[in-house]
Every structure is written in structure tokens, then in C-alpha cells.
């Protein structure tokens, strides 16, 4: 191995030579493995990977995403999930579709209108077709309240934290329910707008300082400080 664990690497940097596999964000040339994105190099078993700092959201099967309706078609909705590909939610993939077969755009508009936010799951995606969504499932469906933060998808694991440590702290300290979409869109729902605002601030703070130390403590301190003036009324 030519790099140390958690070392910041740039595209084209030599990571390893010999009996290693090329994992995500790396590529192989002959017997050498190079990084293909800026990020932290790591090794999992004998697989070299790079955890990227930034990058577009590429949908994966079963991802939970938060999206916004941009168009209504004859049998479904076009949904912006902050990916380079527009997603499609077919009417047949919503729990309300029974009894509404043959409905036109107006009917569909009653379920989701343009601009509506939803929590959905990716049920299909490959190189030849745009991602397909479903809202059949627990916790999926229209979002009626709350505030939304948009961060780079690569930082979602940091929002969640090791064994959920970060997100648990956030929920507890802000009193909000936080739902992170794999596409970098995060929903924070609280009892009042102040809680939601503080939660969103915390999320952006984590994105900005994801690579620093003592982050959980600092974020907690920021939240507690902000909440002090808010708990009354």
C-alpha cells in the first residue's frame, strides 16, 4: 500500500500496488490502483477505497430519498431528487392508487401537486433508464411540514454518525425528528419553527466541518446555546 489510511488523496494518486482490489472511487491500471476522486483513502480487507469529499448523488436501489415534484404526467409524477437524472413516481407505486385508475392529470394533482415534497424509495435504476420511485412503505409519502436542508450526499454518513451517534444527538437536543435522504436532502420536523431552524443550522454546520475533530461536541454546544433562548414560549 502506498497511502496511509484516511490520507487525503487526489485523482491519479497511487494508492496501492499488488494484491489489492480496486473498490469505489478507485481504478486499476495493470498492477497499480489509483484514486479517481478527491477523498480519504481507506482499505477494507484488501480492497482499496476512497471516501469522497463531494459528489453528485447517483441513485441506488432501496435508497430513501426526499424529492420535489416538478411535473405531473398521465400516469405519474416527475420528481427532482437532486440527481443528474429526473425520477419518476408512477401512480401504481402510491398507496392511494386503487380506485383511481383512468384518472387524468387533474386527479393526480390531488395526490401530489407541482412543488410538493415527498419521502420515497428508489425501486429501480440503471444506466439506461431514469430512477423509479415508490411511496408504498412505512414512513413514505407526502411531506406536509418541516424544513429541508440540502447537503452534499457524501456527507450523509457523517450526519448519521457512527452507530447513529450524531443523528441521535441532533434529534434529542433539538427536539425534532430528522429524516436524512441518501440524496443529500434532509427533513427536520419539530413542534415549532425555531427548533427546525436550529436543526437545519446544525446540519449545515456538520457539512462544513465534517472533516474536523470534536464535531459532535461542538454541534451539541451550538444547539444547546441556541435552544436556551427558545424553550420558553
Amino acid at each position, binding site marked *: 500500500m502506498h497511502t496511509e489510511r484516511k490520507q487525503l488523496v487526489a485523482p491519479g494518486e497511487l494508492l496501492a500496488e499488488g494484491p489489492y482490489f480496486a473498490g469505489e472511487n478507485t481504478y486499476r491500471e495493470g498492477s497499480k490502483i489509483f484514486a479517481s476522486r478527491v477523498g480519504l483513502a481507506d482499505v477494507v480487507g484488501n480492497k482499496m477505497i476512497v471516501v469522497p*469529499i463531494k459528489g453528485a448523488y447517483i441513485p441506488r436501489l432501496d435508497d430513501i430519498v426526499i424529492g420535489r415534484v416538478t411535473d405531473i404526467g398521465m400516469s405519474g409524477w416527475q420528481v427532482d431528487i437532486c440527481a443528474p437524472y429526473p425520477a419518476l413516481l408512477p401512480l401504481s407505486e402510491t398507496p392511494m392508487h386503487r380506485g383511481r385508475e383512468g384518472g387524468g392529470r387533474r386527479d393526480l394533482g390531488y395526490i401530489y401537486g407541482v412543488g410538493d415534497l415527498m419521502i420515497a424509495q428508489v425501486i429501480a435504476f440503471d444506466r439506461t433508464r431514469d430512477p423509479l420511485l415508490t411511496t408504498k412503505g412505512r414512513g413514505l409519502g407526502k411531506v406536509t411540514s418541516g424544513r429541508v436542508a440540502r447537503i452534499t450526499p457524501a456527507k450523509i454518513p457523517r450526519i448519521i454518525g457512527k452507530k447513529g451517534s450524531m443523528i441521535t444527538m441532533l434529534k434529542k437536543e433539538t427536539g425534532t425528528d430528522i429524516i436524512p435522504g441518501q440524496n443529500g436532502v434532509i427533513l427536520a420536523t419539530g413542534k415549532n419553527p425555531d427548533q427546525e431552524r436550529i436543526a437545519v443550522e446544525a446540519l449545515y454546520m456538520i457539512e462544513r466541518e465534517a472533516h474536523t475533530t470534536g464535531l459532535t461536541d461542538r454541534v451539541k454546544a451550538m444547539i444547546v446555546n441556541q435552544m436556551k433562548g427558545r424553550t420558553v414560549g
Partner: protein
Amino acid sequence: MGNQKTIRLLDENGLRVDGRRWDELRPIKMEVGILDKADGSAYIEHGKNKILAALYGPREAHPKHIALADRAVVRCRYHMAPFSTEERKSPAPSRREQELSKVIRESLEPSIMSEYYPRTTIDIFIEVLQADAGTRCAGITAASLALADAGIPMRELVAACAAGKIEGKIVLDLSDVEDKQGEADLPVAFMPKSNVVSLLQMDGGLTEEEFMQALELSTGACRRIYEMQREALKQKYHVAKEETEEKEEAQEVRA
């Protein structure tokens, strides 16, 4: 403006107008991720050149029919601000800007793994805020950083630098006066890891030997510039790695 007076480009000690030796680069400064809305960005100062590069993508192809089924379409626009040159330049794209947009795209595209994002576009914008010869090279260097900053998968970074001939001598990194009065200009873009050239243009007059010399000079400089690019990326994303691990484990215990 009238007839520009020609001046001596090399003095008795072989030093150039700005005091540089024949193989010295002008001062270079690079910064990554300075724009908020772009997916990736970089700013470079190379001599008096001030150039901003921004990256949007991969994003949905608009209009749809330009999309390619098996890879991303890479688009590139090289543009000079009207106030960037001595004489005001019209904002409309000139033929020179159109040619440079093409050769710059062709210098960066080989490094991009565009097959990762079929049916999308990756849009590169290079804005020259102040020009002082060597804008296409500095633009390529900055654009490569912007691509990396955006997290676009790439084989490696691309660095670029020009060499030339002034008063019969091969020199590195022409300044504006040297470009205007000199005898040859050779811009080169180079990928140091793979050892290949992705942009090569020349105008002027060089013998075969002079050309070989100039090519070696510019590719050598590209290697130095590549190290600066890596440094600029690390500056942006500096990590204290051991501390991160320890603190995280400690937090787990407490949580």
C-alpha cells in the same frame, strides 16, 4: 494605441523583463472551492492572469437530444471578460474563444471518466478576469481543479504551461510582452501520471531541435504545477486523521 515600441526581452545576464531566468515560472497561486453555487470551482493567479473556473455537473442534459447514451457530454466555455485585456474586448464570443473552448475541452476530456454518467452533461466554465498570456494553460489548470473539487471521477489531474522563444532563446512561461514580441509560443497540457500530452499548439517558428527543447521545458513545468494542484486540494480539505479516529471512538463510548 499606435505602434508599440519594441523592447529588449533579454538583458546582458540573460534575465527577462520581469527578472526571471529562462526556466522560471511566473508566481502561481491556486484556490479550490471558492464559489458557492457551482458544483466545483477553482481560482488561479498565474503571473498577472486571474482566472476563475467553475463546474456544473453531472446534470440532466438540456436539451435532451444532445445527450449521449453511454457517457456524459462534456461542454466547455472559455470566455474573456471585456475588461480583462488592455483594449476592451467585446463580450460576444470571438473565433479565438471558440477555438480555445474546443482545444481546452479536448485537453480535459481524456481525464474525465465520463462513462460513469451516461445521458448527462458536465459543464466547464472558464472566465478570464485578467489576461496576461498563457490564459488557456492557466484555465486548464484551474478547470482540472474545479473538476476534482466537484467530485467528478477522473483518471488524474491535468496541468498546463506554455514555453516559447524570445530573441532566439527557448524560455518557459511567456508573459504578455514576450508573447507579443517573441518568435514562438507553445502551449502544452500534460498529465504527469500517465506521461501524456492532451493539448499541443504552436505558432511562430522553431527548428526541430528548438521544438524538442521547448516541449521538454513545458512538460517539466507541468509536473511542478501538478504538485501545486495537489497541494491546493489538500489545503482545502485538510484533515487531522489520527485525531478524528480517536475522538470518534471516544464519543461513541460517551454517547
